[in-house]
């Protein structure tokens, strides 16, 4: 583990992106992939980077890592301007961009040795990384013989080889089975617990909600919302869902409405009320005092997914 990671609090912001813009030449003119994007990550933790397909997530990550030259704006990673000194900090940054990319005829172990060798890492680091992702026993198999999930694990192993302070993962759960996804989730959390910063893009909103401390939502190249996951979820509407005894539903609707709350009869003795968890006990008391006994009452919080859809105006699969 790096010294900074051990202390948990880096001396400088881990990531500072200011006014990032990237234009591509298209047949129909210039296409703006990223538009005046600002990102600030002060320290350790798991930061989710959400956006629908084509929103600019991967382009942003490529800009961060110097694979794409930004049209304008600045990127600082670990306190270093990447346009001038990325090589000074690259050995403290592990990254997986889109799909795993390795030499197909080399074994997983040899691939890691090859890339680790570029920065002078030896077999010990390779074996440790392979073991971390559960590929030690299949390390001698050629990369081309790996399943998609194994390839993804190898890519994660490669990002961990450098014992990085900042880890950038682009869709790390792609191709993984449910057990693999759980493993990756645990791994990401454990990396953050060690004082590292994990910047993870994903379209699996549930995963982000379970894994990340903070989230940034990007749409059409622009950052439209960011903050702690819990705060974002609170941005959405909350509902109380009630179920009454048969024959009491209409009366309950009138009572709740008279109390000044928005209420909707949903059929089958079920009612939804535009109210939060804090209102639940008062509502229950109000109905009980009128002789209306509830079969059930629960708080229905908005998911990150619904928030996301509201913010980006997206529908269907992301």
């Amino acid at each position, binding site marked *: 583990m790096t010294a900074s990671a051990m202390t948990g609090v880096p001396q400088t912001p881990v990531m500072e992106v200011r006014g990032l813009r990237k234009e591509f030449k298209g047949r129909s003119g210039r296409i703006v992939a990223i538009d005046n994007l600002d990102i600030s990550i002060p320290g350790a933790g798991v930061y989710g980077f959400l956006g629908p397909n084509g929103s600019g997530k991967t382009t942003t990550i490529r800009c961060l*890592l110097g694979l794409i030259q930004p049209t304008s704006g600045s990127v600082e990673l670990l306190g270093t301007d990447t346009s001038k000194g990325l090589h000074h900090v690259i050995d403290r940054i592990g990254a997986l961009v889109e799909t795993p*990319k*390795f030499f*197909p005829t080399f074994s997983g172990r040899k691939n890691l040795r090859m890339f680790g060798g570029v920065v002078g890492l030896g077999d010990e680091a390779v074996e440790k990384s392979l073991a971390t992702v559960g590929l030690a026993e299949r390390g001698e198999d050629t990369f081309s013989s790996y399943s998609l999930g194994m390839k993804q694990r190898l890519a994660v192993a490669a990002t961990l080889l450098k014992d990085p302070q900042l880890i950038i993962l682009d869709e790390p759960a792609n191709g993984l089975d449910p057990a693999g996804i759980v493993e990756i989730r645990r791994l990401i959390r454990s990396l953050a617990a060690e004082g590292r910063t994990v910047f993870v893009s994903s379209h699996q909103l549930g995963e982000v909600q379970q894994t990340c401390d903070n989230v940034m939502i990007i749409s059409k190249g622009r950052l439209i919302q960011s903050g702690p996951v819990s705060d974002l979820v609170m941005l959405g509407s909350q509902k109380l869902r009630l179920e009454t005894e048969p024959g009491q539903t209409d009366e309950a609707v009138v009572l709740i409405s008279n109390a000044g709350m928005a209420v909707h009869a949903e059929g089958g003795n079920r009612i939804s009320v535009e109210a939060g968890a804090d209102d639940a006990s008062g509502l229950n008391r109000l109905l009980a005092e009128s002789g209306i006994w509830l079969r059930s009452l629960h708080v229905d919080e908005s998911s990150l997914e619904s928030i996301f859809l509201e913010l980006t105006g997206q529908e269907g699969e992301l």
Partner: protein
Amino acid sequence: MNLFRTELVRFWSRRITWVTLGVAAAVMILGVGIGFFRTDAVEPGSAVVEADEFCVASFQQDIDDGFAQLPPGVSEDEYLDMARTQFCVFDQDNDRRFWAVSILGPESSDWSENRRMWESPTGMVTITDRSGRDVEYRESREPLSGLIPGVSIAFLLISVVLGASFMGAEYRSGTVENLLLWEPRRSRVLLTKYVAGFLSSATATALALSFLTGLLLLLARVHGTYEGVDGRFWIDLVLVLFRASIAGGLMFVMAMGIATIFKHTTAAVGAILGWFVVSNVLVEWLLRFMRQHELVINAAAFVGEGEPFRYVEGMWGQQVVYHHGYLAAGVYVLIWAAVPAIIALVLFNRRDLT
């Protein structure tokens, strides 16, 4: 240095490297094996004597006919002494002798006033064409070191394929992007690849041609003779291998550069091999003015110590005159390799990896 070491490991770990070298070795073994069965052992000294007689007679005839030019300060006797046979095997099927009078003799039909006097490190001259007409059952052939330069052209093509694949595979598998996540200084990455590729390819070429040389020397041992072979022969043979290796390395780098420009193996191989195929037609027909600058001609001249010539208008129409020597030919090959490599370096630095 870490990156350099990694690139060396990658070159020698690639399947295509070993498959190519294996196939080349098999073809060489087959070719020399056929040579073995088509030849008989010779009586010690007899081949040399006969070849000497033939060679001296041929030179004498050339001198008498006014075709041969004596180097400045060299007497006729000294000149004939230079033509001693150094290596031969006997071809039993065709009843003729394969013999060598020199290892690096330049062949030239340049009879213009500006012609270059015969020169070679050995001071000897290879004759190839006229002897076949003059002597019914004997035919002079390329010497051992003439065979090596000829075969080395094939290895230049192999170097092209390996070089294009070395870089094209990086784009195909996306590993070039992965590599930049470990070393983001792009110039350093590509230049290191060039150097590692050059050295590796040159070494591979040297190994392969040394293997062939070993086989031929073995054949000469059992079905030929080393009589007359002197230290100069070996030195020149090593120099041929050395130049072939350098040419192989340069072709590798050129192919790497073109593969980087196209971001594709097949496109690079197609472009270079396509040039190999059409260049001879072009420079002998449409682009005669650039014959002396052409890649393949200069590569062959550099390896075989030849002398690219150019066309000039003479008394009897177009004639050929010597243009530059084999070392200059090496510089031409270097330029041919450097131009795409530099263009590739510029593009590699500027391109987005998307």
